[in-house]
């Protein structure tokens, strides 16, 4: 009797093992801003995540397993964020974490993910320093970083306005505003050393009033004004500049303005340079005729009443990476559900496509993402500015090579770099 039972148990074991391996759901924990000024990014991302999960599950989930996503508010402060993150990764049973929007939060959470041995996709934060200063086993980035984003802006500016002489900057007074100017200035000085910086302004984050800066800029009359502001700060700056005619006398370079186009309405005149932190645009010239793209844009607009902005695209990339890596790992595992090490192995060289061009994961875990830059135009087709003279730059050409520190690498560039970067151009 005893032997019979043992034999039966042994026979049953491989079966139960394989069945238990496939979980009831694939749990994703996503940090995003639901409160605070950055909720202009976080709330669209959450809406996008809900649509994407719905779509994936309607198609049978990933490898037959439905995806489940829960959200953590990044606006609640670093302490709450880390304890919530820890809770979700440990007792919450999250298989993969998506974190974060804020660069500061990425820098806090990347080592934590490593400690907790949970796979983390950095899905939106900008800082280029993460993989330049550390190497991680569990942390990957499913998008570009500040270096290609700023380089694309400089290259577009130099290609479209080769003869400008003076530039001023109005950035927010915190890490992003300072770091992005550092990269932009270094690149500009390397490729066009005769440009003069005539003003550097760093009003405090969340500043409600740029009137004094605008008066000063009107007196200085720079050819180009750079601002990497975003959200309410960008809206306020552009509105106040437009109200007082500053946008008629200087060309603005606004690397994050794609996310403000709809809110700015008629206030953003034609002829200013707009960026999108990647190849993100609700009328993406290479994607707008795809059914999947059109379907998503329509569903997003229906759900939110707004057009898609770049955090939506970044969310789509994170979910595309999730789907791609599990499918790759399942295939490598002979069709069975993979364990964490097998998923990690499948991340190497992973290629996936969200709502833009395909993105690849490099050996240092940095994502290589194309960059879209364009010029604003008021056509009358929409109640807000759209984009024309669109250039999409190849991500690999403008991302600092593995092992290089961005600012050093950029400082070593020269004017010939402009012609070495792969670019596709579209009228609109």
């Amino acid at each position, binding site marked *: 009797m005893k032997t019979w039972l043992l034999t039966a148990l042994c026979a049953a074991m491989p079966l139960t093992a394989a069945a238990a391996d496939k979980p009831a759901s694939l749990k994703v924990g996503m940090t995003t801003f639901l409160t605070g000024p950055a909720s202009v990014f976080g709330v669209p991302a959450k809406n996008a995540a809900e649509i994407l999960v719905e779509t994936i599950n309607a198609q049978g989930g990933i490898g037959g397993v439905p995806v489940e996503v829960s959200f953590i508010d990044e606006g609640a402060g670093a302490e709450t964020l880390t304890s919530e993150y820890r809770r979700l990764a440990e007792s919450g049973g999250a298989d993969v974490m998506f974190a974060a929007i804020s660069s500061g939060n990425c820098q806090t959470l990347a080592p934590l993910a490593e400690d907790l041995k949970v796979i983390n996709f950095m899905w939106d934060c900008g800082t280029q320093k993460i993989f330049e200063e550390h190497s991680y086993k569990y942390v990957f980035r499913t998008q570009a970083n500040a270096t290609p984003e700023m380089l694309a802006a400089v290259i577009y500016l130099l290609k479209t306005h080769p003869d400008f002489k003076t530039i001023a900057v109005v950035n927010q007074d915190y890490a992003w505003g300072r770091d992005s100017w550092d990269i932009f200035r270094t690149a500009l000085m390397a490729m066009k050393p005769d440009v003069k910086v005539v003003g550097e302004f760093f*009003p405090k984050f969340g500043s409600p009033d740029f*009137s*004094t*800066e605008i008066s*000063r800029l009107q007196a200085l009359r720079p050819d180009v004004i750079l601002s990497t502001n975003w959200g309410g700060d960008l809206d306020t700056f552009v509105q106040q500049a437009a109200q007082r005619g500053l946008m008629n006398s200087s060309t603005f370079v606004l690397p994050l303005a794609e996310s403000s186009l709809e809110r700015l309405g008629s206030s953003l005149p034609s002829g200013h340079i707009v960026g999108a932190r990647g190849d993100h645009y609700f009328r993406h010239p290479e994607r707008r005729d795809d059914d999947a793209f059109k379907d998503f844009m329509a569903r997003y607009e229906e759900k939110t009443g707004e057009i898609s902005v770049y955090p939506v695209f970044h969310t789509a990339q994170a979910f595309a990476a999730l789907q791609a890596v599990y499918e790759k790992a399942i295939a490598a595992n002979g069709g069975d559900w993979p364990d964490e090490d097998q998923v990690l192995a499948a991340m190497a060289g992973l290629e996936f496509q969200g709502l833009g061009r395909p993105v690849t994961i490099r050996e240092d875990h940095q994502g290589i993402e194309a960059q879209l830059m364009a010029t604003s135009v008021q056509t009358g087709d929409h109640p807000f500015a759209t984009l024309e003279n669109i250039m999409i730059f190849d991500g690999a050409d403008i991302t600092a090579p593995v092992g290089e520190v961005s600012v050093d690498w950029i400082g070593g560039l020269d004017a010939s770099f402009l012609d070495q970067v792969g670019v596709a151009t579209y009228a609109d």
Partner: protein
Amino acid sequence: MTPTLFLLALFDGIAYAALVFIVALGLTLIFGVMRILNIAHGSLYAIGAYATVSLSGWALAMGLAPILAFPLMLVSAVLVGLLLGGPIEWLLLRRIYDKPEVLQLLVTFAVFMILEDVQRLVWGTRPYFEATALQALGNVTVLGVTYTVYQLILLPAVAAALLLGMRFFLRHTIIGKLILATTEDREAAQSIGIDADKVFLFTFIVGAALAGLGGALASPTTSILPGMGADMIVLSFAVVATAGLGQIEGAALCALMIGLGRSFAVYVWPEAATLVPYAIMVAVLSVRPQGLFGSSSARKI
């Protein structure tokens, strides 16, 4: 610094000071009369701005003339005073006038937190921008620099009118004199038949409406978004504390000092622009802890 730049900095400083003063006026009035530092003042400012945006957005959608945005600002301010200021005083503050100051501060802070969430529930997290009123007045060019009439002329004019109006109201009208009497000595005022409860309620409604008016007037110039109230309460508190709590004319002068300090900093030393208002506050308070015009006497306004 050339004379031209000096004038430009002066204009910018005055326009900025005007807006800060209007908000600080309500804060210092409430403190002067009721001895309560109302942190929720910041929320009332933000809600005044939101209400104006919603009302004028609605009016425009109905096809009404853009110039109507101005009376709608007043409507928003009065609504904030009556619908929020009234109940806050009547339901909450009335119960805690004889409680320790720390508790009063905590209660108004709690109201601030609640109202911040109310804003998010009602208006969401999206920034709004509604500049119809500002555009209706057009621009002027001074020394080759374009200003909006709204900021260069209207805001300082409103601030000056409020300052003079408040002086006149407190010193030359019956209600004003009742307020002054209650401020001077509440018990003595009550003993000669002044209804101090009514005076407090009225004062708080007026103070709250001034916060709402500040928000309404700020709304065409800036993005209306969560967190704007916190920013303003800190700045207007800096003005009020530098002047001495309860000092109306002093608040006007300090708003001007802080506004000019900030705008000159943008021209001379942009890195320090954020620091200037607080540097002025620290400098003043370390020499005169009761504020520039504050005194330890019983008279508050």
